[in-house]
């Protein structure tokens, strides 16, 4: 049996390694978080939306689903949908993000609050709402926050889906959302 074999093989030639290092790269009193977050997000092809832009978006698309608690917009409902396979025709999905990371423009999304985990990946366009006070400096601060987050599936989303697999040419909108809007 493989399990026994592998464990035995690991046991058979023990060696000493270094101690598990501790580290602390968290930033105590971060400054300009908003400015830095916006710069990182834009560099990753995310759009920072003003209320006007958001209204334009919702006017432009017919099948809009709003699952955010932060904004007041009534879109279509997901009532009666039992399978993720039925979600293919969403034009625009609006959800809440828990917090943003200034060093890379990523936003933590805990999908447990969503009816289907696939939603932020299958929608044609995605808007994530976050609060300006919910920003951290770097990934160390981010994981310090996540530690207390109980999630089944959680994801850092750092922009619209993209690829450079054809001759290193950057193409936005590979397989997931074609655009990511961030609304504060």
């Amino acid at each position, binding site marked *: 049996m493989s399990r026994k074999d592998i*464990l035995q093989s690991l046991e058979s030639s023990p060696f000493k390694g270094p101690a598990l290092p501790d580290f602390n790269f968290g930033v105590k009193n971060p400054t300009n978080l908003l400015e830095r977050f916006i710069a990182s997000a834009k560099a990753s092809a995310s759009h920072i939306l003003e209320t006007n832009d958001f209204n334009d978006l919702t006017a432009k698309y017919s099948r809009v689903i709003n699952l955010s608690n932060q904004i007041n917009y009534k879109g279509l409902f997901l009532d009666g949908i039992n399978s993720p396979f039925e979600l293919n025709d969403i034009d625009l999905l609006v959800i809440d993000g828990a917090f943003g990371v200034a060093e890379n423009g990523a936003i933590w999304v805990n999908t447990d609050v969503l009816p289907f985990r696939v939603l932020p990946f299958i929608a044609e366009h995605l808007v994530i709402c976050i609060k300006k006070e919910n920003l951290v400096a770097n*990934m160390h601060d981010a994981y310090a926050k996540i530690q207390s987050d109980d999630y*089944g*599936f959680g994801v850092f989303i750092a922009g619209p*889906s993209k690829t450079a697999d054809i001759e290193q040419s950057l193409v936005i909108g590979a397989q997931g959302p074609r655009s990511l809007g961030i609304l504060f």
Partner: protein
Amino acid sequence: MTNHPKNAEEFIKDTDRVDWHDAALWHVRQKRDIAVDTVPEWEELRNIAAQIKAHTLANLRSYLLDFEQNAMANGVEVHWAKDAEAHNQIVLEILQRNNVKKIVKSKSMLTEECGLNPFLEGRDFEITDTDLGERIIQMRQEPPSHIVLPAIHIKKEEVGDLFRKELGAEPGNNDPAYLTNQARIHLREKFLQCDAAITGVNFGVADTGEVVVCTNEGNADLGVHLAPITIHSMGIEKLVPRQKDLAVFIRLLARSATGQPITIYTSHHKKTAKGAEKHIVLVDNGRSKRLAMEKYRSSLQCIRCGACMNTCPIYRRSGGHSYHFTIPGPIGSILAPATDLKAYSDLPFASTLCGSCGDVCPVKIDIPNQLYLWRQEIAEAGALEGKRKSMKAASKLLASPRSYRNFGWLMRLGLRFMPNFLIINRYNVWTKGRDLPKPPKQSFKDWYKKNQR
């Protein structure tokens, strides 16, 4: 027998293509440098990452058991596979038990290593690679030539031709945005019909039992969250002890790989979704054996960023396929000989030992040193047929100052008058694609005698 210089010869016939390949990868290396320079604590992160990995490997048994226990508590089924065959059998059994016909797979070098695709295709499954680059090479029936940029060797015109044939794309349109969209439409159809999803794993976390998968396209997540059955195939060396360790590795990985500060999606798969089934297959396939090899142990620290390939002057000019091993480039060249010394005895020599791979490695694997150690081992094992005789002759010559002096004089004179065919011929590989320098009129020793005060 296939070997690197022979394969590379084929690749470098098209010099324009070599220049293009070289420049494309160097561009990625430059993007890496820019990204790295924005992190003042970069070197400290590298040190800590190397320590975390070395510590985990030294205690792998107990961390694997922790991981198994925590993953099971999350509702995940954990399997153990001692080799590629066991891995493929476990996957097959899961698929058959659930009546799966159509599988979507995201990028995974491990399933490549295990030969999962041909194994399943031979048993009438439809398996679709969903990463764009992987889909391109799957259609061309080729292995990936790079671990992060699998189709880096292919030009857009070739992709255009391929998509016309396979997907009915319009003739003459080779715009990457257009072609990507054609693939998106085709792959979305595959996603909407899938019965199961298979992914690789970037990191497994012992204290939470979760697995982390990093992608830019979103393909892994579309598969996992649509399909009722998910299988994550994971090498046993992918573990980190604590969730907070992820911060170190996530900061290093994408910056080293493509110069991005983070991949677009960094997905943390912890608990099984309602109504779904999740499996993790822990694969050894030679890893525990390598762990027992003290000199080469640290090669298991690799996080598969591909930075060593992008920076390697040999890789850039010879292409990934020349390495005839699942993982090409410098890291592949130190991984391969441990699996079969004879079959891969050429690979540790596919290097100038310039050291650049070691300098960019985010987990500080001493790749150049291990290349050198493998060379010694290969020489001792007598796997260097051609070079042995000439090296012996050279060693004799160089050991005697007198014969060295005489030979030097002879060559300085001879090279001036010898006809070209005597110097540039198939026995002298040095003159392949380059001329010998003009010999000096006198030796350094003579010059020194004359000019010393």
